[in-house]
């Protein structure tokens, strides 16, 4: 704190608010971002959000590598969404290059994608409980989460960074001897789901801390373009799997889950977000079961040989868009390929947190400083997914720009990307 900010004007003392900084390093935050809260007592009357601490220039790095290398780089945009980004990226490249994906591969991609949703939502639930000071629930939830991590390890070979999708298909099959492990895990979760709902939704102290906290109304969610569970908890029936079915989702009827499905009125608070995420775990388990039972037979890749794949991609030109409903919301990858070049000519990533960031402001305003951790966690923020820009001057010191300057810079960049 500098001297200026503690210099209170005595004449206006009654009306003075004070500022509490949260972040970039703070126990309530799992990743770096900076909030400045204007407080009136314990009540938040103003908030300033400053992202950009986790910017790594990953798109630039991807444009310096060939497409196979860039695929594994896209996986490392985020450790939790480590299938969501490759799924969107492969779809974008396949669209651009016109590569077909065999049905079996599409189903396997769906299974891994939904398993990731199970473990990501359980991870979120545990983090949320920790933010409430309820560490027992954190440990219980994460213990339950281990089953999905173990299954992912069995199916893909690693607990995170599954390296399953490749352009034109998937790299690993789900053989018979592993399918029964998947069914076992699904039964385990089906049996535990009611316990999870009891532990979170019927617990008095959790309800005290989350009901009517961090409210995002339907209108605000629509206006601020919130995505994923954040929007759905406010009653916006918005889900890429429902609106623009892709992969195996086209073969089943996926419906966006809102708190109404639980039988309660939609308020749009943190409690509703818990409802939506827990019900989505149940939905994901149904989807995985459907995929396992209806797994089509056939090949895994339409272009199985790596040299042939590299050659096809080098010849391809055009632009493609890939969308995927990640656990946190819609992730979009844009790729432009040029003939004769192995590297993508342009790569743009829009992560769900980027859309949900603005939803924080109405959620924070009017609530207490004690609600900051759970509200910050409620949109399941992922800074390393989201941070695509950091402004610095020549000496490397962070600088600030006005809205007009930012719009101008963004337009210039879009023109540059689109060639």
């Amino acid at each position: 704190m500098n001297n200026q900010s503690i210099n209170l004007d005595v004449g206006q003392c009654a009306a003075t608010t004070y500022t509490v900084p949260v972040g970039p390093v703070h126990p309530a935050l799992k990743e770096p971002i900076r909030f400045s809260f204007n407080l009136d007592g314990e009540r938040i009357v103003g908030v300033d959000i400053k992202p950009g601490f986790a910017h790594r220039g990953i798109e630039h790095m991807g444009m310096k590598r060939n497409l196979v290398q860039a695929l594994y780089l896209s996986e490392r945009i985020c450790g939790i969404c480590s299938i969501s980004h490759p799924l969107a990226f492969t779809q974008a490249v396949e669209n651009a290059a016109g590569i077909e994906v065999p049905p079996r591969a599409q189903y396997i991609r769906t299974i891994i994608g939904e398993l990731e949703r199970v473990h990501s939502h359980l991870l979120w639930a545990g983090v949320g409980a920790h933010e409430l000071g309820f560490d027992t629930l954190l440990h219980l939830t994460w213990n339950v989460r281990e089953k999905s991590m173990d299954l992912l390890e069995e199916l893909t070979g690693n607990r995170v960074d599954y390296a399953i999708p490749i352009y034109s298909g998937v790299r690993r099959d789900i053989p018979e001897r592993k399918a029964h492990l998947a069914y076992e895990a699904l039964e385990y979760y089906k049996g535990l789901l009611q316990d999870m709902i009891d532990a979170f939704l019927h617990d008095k102290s959790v309800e005290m801390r989350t009901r009517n906290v961090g409210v995002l109304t339907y209108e605000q969610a629509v206006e601020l373009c919130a995505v994923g569970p954040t929007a759905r908890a406010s009653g916006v029936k918005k889900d890429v799997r429902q609106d623009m079915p892709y992969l195996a989702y086209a073969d089943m009827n996926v419906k966006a889950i809102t708190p109404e499905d639980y039988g309660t009125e939609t308020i749009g608070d943190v409690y509703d977000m818990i409802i939506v995420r827990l019900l989505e775990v149940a939905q994901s388990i149904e989807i995985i079961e459907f995929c396992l039972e209806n797994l089509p037979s056939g090949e895994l890749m339409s272009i199985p040989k790596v040299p042939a794949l590299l050659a096809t991609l080098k010849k391809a030109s055009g632009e493609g868009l890939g969308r995927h409903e990640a656990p946190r919301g819609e992730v979009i990858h844009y790729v432009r390929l040029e003939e004769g070049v192995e590297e993508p000519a342009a790569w743009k990533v829009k992560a769900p947190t980027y859309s949900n960031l603005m939803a924080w402001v109405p959620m924070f305003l009017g609530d207490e400083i004690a609600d900051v951790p759970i509200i910050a966690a409620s949109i399941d923020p992922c800074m390393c997914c989201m941070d695509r820009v950091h402004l610095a001057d020549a000496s490397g010191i962070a600088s600030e720009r006005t809205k007009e300057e930012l719009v101008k810079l963004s337009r210039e960049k879009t023109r540059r990307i689109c060639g």
Partner: protein
Amino acid sequence: MSGTLLNAVWQGIVILVGGTLLGMIYKGLDRKLAAQMQGRIGPPIRQPFFDVIKLMVKENVVPDHAVGWLYNLMPLLSLASVATLLFYLPLGGFQPLLGGFGDLILILYLLAVPSIAMVLGGFAAGSPLATVGAQREMVMMMAYEFPLAITFLSLGWTLSTFMPGAHVFSLSVLAANPLWGMVGPLGVIGLILLFAALMIVTPAELAKIPFDIPEAETEIAGGILAEYSGRNMAMFYLADAIKMVVMGSLTVALFFPYGLSGLVGLSGAWGSVIDVAFYLVKVFVVIFFAVIVVRVAFARIKIGQAARLFWLPITGISLLGMLLLTLDRFV
């Protein structure tokens, strides 16, 4: 005279060292059992000793904006006041060392001193997070002191109706004359209610979940303690450990002062050993149910909710207990 004084000094040292060690062991047990209940392994029981040693050798940072002397004085004041409390409590069935020089009212004041020290230390730290923590601690004190005072007062008053003229607020008199056998059925219900109120005040007094609002790690990064480090932090840590023993012993002295030596027919040294062991178990049981189980079974509540909880239901419970005791004596 000098012999008695020397004796008292020795006893004082034994009580201080013993109380501190006991507090640290209970803290270790607290962490181990909480971990076990959460499905974890947890640290070894001697971990608090490692923590204190490590804090002692670490650098003692004083922030630039802090009021240095106040900031450094408050941990000392906190530790000194809880250490003083040990001299006024009947530990292990023995008479309190300073029993003749203070009573329950003094204990009530001394219990408030560590909290006040933390408030002042928090404000003196000059950090916004510590300031928020200090404000919260003040609200917490205002919230839980009232039911605590009612509990003490009711017990003393009830005893005074039985023993007019006795020094009823003296803890040794209260411990020597447990009320359970004296009052009627209404009074027993009243005592149970007062006991319940004290058990709920205990985690608040010790700033444990769900009432660790002034420290709230995920919200204000340790709040009052956010800026403290090294030796100062170690003193707050020790004060916290001793306060746990103090609250446990207080509950035991007020509600369960019974010994085992009379029951098994032992006297002298062996009787004392049995009584001390039984006392340790009693304190542990109180800490287990009032602190350890509670802190793993609830989420942290907000300061407004905590204040409302103490001012309405908990004060209500203690007032009802007082009313029942009064009715029991006069109807």
